[in-house]
């Protein structure tokens, strides 16, 4: 069969010790037996390693941060499109999803397909509103509460049901376990300084953390889903090794959730499995995670499937995956000439 040629824009080329999902997504696309892909890297910073991985990324353009507004971003994408004629765009950063979701129609008009969650799906899974999400979709979530002052901790155990330890979390990023008032207040101020208010207090659920990568087709069907447990975690809390699990409960829970929410696009569910075999949903990441290549290696090429969905090509749900496959991350030193760095820095293209 002759492969179909497509040009795909991919962000998240920061394949560093806390990696973005861009490079693993590209590896999945490159291994597709259906597509012959030309990869256009979209980079925010000039040292994102993927920029210099010429066997994976054909050409890279720098794009402005979402913080500069979607107008600036869209103008840049339109310029890149005029050179490269993109068929598909796969954003991989949480912080940029909002801008790309808002721009989805505008992108479609210039022939660029995306396959992103709907705004409503994106908004209702935010950490700060997780309890409502749990109630709505009948899934267990840890008790949590939004607070605005550290005085809260002085009366927490008397007035509310929370008992130490609790998790203290920022609205977007950061989480600390606190075992007493003092630790809670320290965590509160650390997060407040970085991410502002509100701060979220979450019940600490004891158990094992398990994750599921999944892809929903937007109609309620699960195209693929692979559960994984982290085997080794770095001091940044990132998985350095993980193994696919044969946990059917976790799979059926994922499928139910996708059915009810009609989730569109990639997702990662972070769950805690307690000793009594209960599952608590901790967080939903609204995109494919950095360990997506484990799913590819286990038999589910989710990046390829996502590309097909985006382009309106029929995709049959995956029926199986290999249980007991491991991923082990490693680092690798690329050698780069200064002239490449110079070219990218000055012209924002390489």
């Amino acid at each position, binding site marked *: 069969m002759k492969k179909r040629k497509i040009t795909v824009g991919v962000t998240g080329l920061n394949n560093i010790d806390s990696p973005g999902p861009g490079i693993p997504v590209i590896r999945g696309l490159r291994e597709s037996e259906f597509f012959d892909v030309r990869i256009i890297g979209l980079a925010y910073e*000039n040292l994102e390693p993927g920029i210099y991985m010429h066997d994976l990324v054909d050409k890279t353009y720098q794009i402005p941060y*979402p913080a500069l507004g*979607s107008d600036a971003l869209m103008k840049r994408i339109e310029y890149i499109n005029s050179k490269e004629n993109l068929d598909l765009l796969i954003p991989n950063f949480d912080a940029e999803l909002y801008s790309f979701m808002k721009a989805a129609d505008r992108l479609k008009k210039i022939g660029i397909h995306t396959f992103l969650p709907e705004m409503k799906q994106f908004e209702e899974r935010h950490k700060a509103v997780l309890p409502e999400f749990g109630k709505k979709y009948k899934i267990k979530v840890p008790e949590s509460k939004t607070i605005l002052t550290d005085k809260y901790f002085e009366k927490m155990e008397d007035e509310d049901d929370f008992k130490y330890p609790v998790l203290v979390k920022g609205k977007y990023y950061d989480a600390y376990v606190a075992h007493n008032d003092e630790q809670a207040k320290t965590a509160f101020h650390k997060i407040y300084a970085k991410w502002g208010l509100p701060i979220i207090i979450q019940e600490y659920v004891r158990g094992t953390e398990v994750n599921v990568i999944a892809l929903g087709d937007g109609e309620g069907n699960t195209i693929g889903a692979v559960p994984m447990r982290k085997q080794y975690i770095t001091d940044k809390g990132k998985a350095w090794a993980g193994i696919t699990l044969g946990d059917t409960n976790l799979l059926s829970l994922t499928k139910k959730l996708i059915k009810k929410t009609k989730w569109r696009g990639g997702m990662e569910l972070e769950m805690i499995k307690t000793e009594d075999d209960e599952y608590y949903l901790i967080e939903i990441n609204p995109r494919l995670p950095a360990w997506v290549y484990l799913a590819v290696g286990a038999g589910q090429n989710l990046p390829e499937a996502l590309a097909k969905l985006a382009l309106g090509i029929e995709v049959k749900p995956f029926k199986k995956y290999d249980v007991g496959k491991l991923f082990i991350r490693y680092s690798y030193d690329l050698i780069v000439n200064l002239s490449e760095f110079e070219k990218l820095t000055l012209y924002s293209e390489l």
Partner: protein
Amino acid sequence: MKKLPFERPIIKKLNVGISNKFGLKTELEPITHIDNVSVSELIKEHGSPLFVISESTVRRTVQEARRAFETRYPKVQFAWSYKTNYLDAVCRIFHQEGSWAEVVSRYEYDKALSNGVEGAKIIFNGPDKTAEDLKIASENNSLIHIDHFDELYTLIEIAGKLKKKPRVAIRVNMDTGVHPQWDRFGFNFENGEAWEAITKIMSSGKLEFVGLHTHIGTFMLTASAYEKAAGKLASLAVDFKKTYGKNVSYIDMGGGFASHNTLKGAYLTGKDTAPSFDEYAEAITNALTNSKLDPDNMPLLILETGRALIDEAGYLLGTVIANKKLSDGRHSTIVNFGVNILFTAFWYEHQINPEKEYSQSSETTVMYGPLCMNIDQIRDSIQLPPLKKDDNIIVSSVGAYNMTQWMQFITLRPRVVLIDVSGGVHVIRKNETNKDITALESVPGHLAKI
């Protein structure tokens, strides 16, 4: 041979890892014209700094807001929030567009009257209304929004001496899931105080209870809070009908809609995150139409939004005074307008563009105003092309609050011009002079000679 335009030579260290995020063309785009009027001509003619208001932007924005509400709800009335910008010319544009006046002091009340607004179309809000104010407002048949019980009792006392019943509403505060909760104005919904106030009004027999008012906060970035608020006011109106057999004639949802400015510390720009008029309208009208209000007798919906209607129509033009290196190596730019006239610099990351085209280079700079005061900082970090002394810059979206909260401090306040819909430029506020300020002062005899 024609000489080339000069640009200050700059050298910028490349921070590896951190991209030249502003190095892309779009960020340095000059603003050469406002409504087809040349910025440099405006400065030449009227001086710098200079406030500019675009009449067509004002009209377009208010029409857009009306369309969003009127296509969703049968009876809608906007009331111009005077405190947001009470230059007479600006107020009159809104009144021409059909807006009533919403005032919070006797000063603003009298201003609205002198702008030709009929008494019955003035909404008198706020905690500070004197007995005299209440009497005048009652006689003019204005809508008095009662803020607290002291005011309510005073008004009942005054009403006894008047021939007609004052028309009143109460301001209600409530929990809409938004923090901080504005509970310092009006009567609380959840603890029953609001109902208590209504009961008092009705039992007095001296006031005509016509409406319910709320104003849930400012720069509200989530439209859903309005849905909760509208739902709560509707439930009060339903209870009122049940108890007293009368319909409330209006529900006033106040203001607080966000403009496109970016709040300090926000990650995404205001332009991307501010809900549209359609989103606010959808939230409010949904709550009203889904409530138990009698569909055949829906109350008039009043909106007092200020900021979102005027912010984008205002520009501040200014000029670079100097470039300076700070001791830690950072670059700084001193411009000729300060926080005394650009009050909103305290909470916004104002968008600032150059007036001319430069090369692609940019530098990070701290932008200071001209005041001899440490707090006079316009932006703590902004990427700009290498501006030099006497180059002009344009601050966008300054129409709300600056021309009312500005201070005569250290220096005099600048001129304000209006660009009308056909491009004509009109001075709507003259430059302040020493004489204007000192006219109010007097020197005792023993200080006449120094």
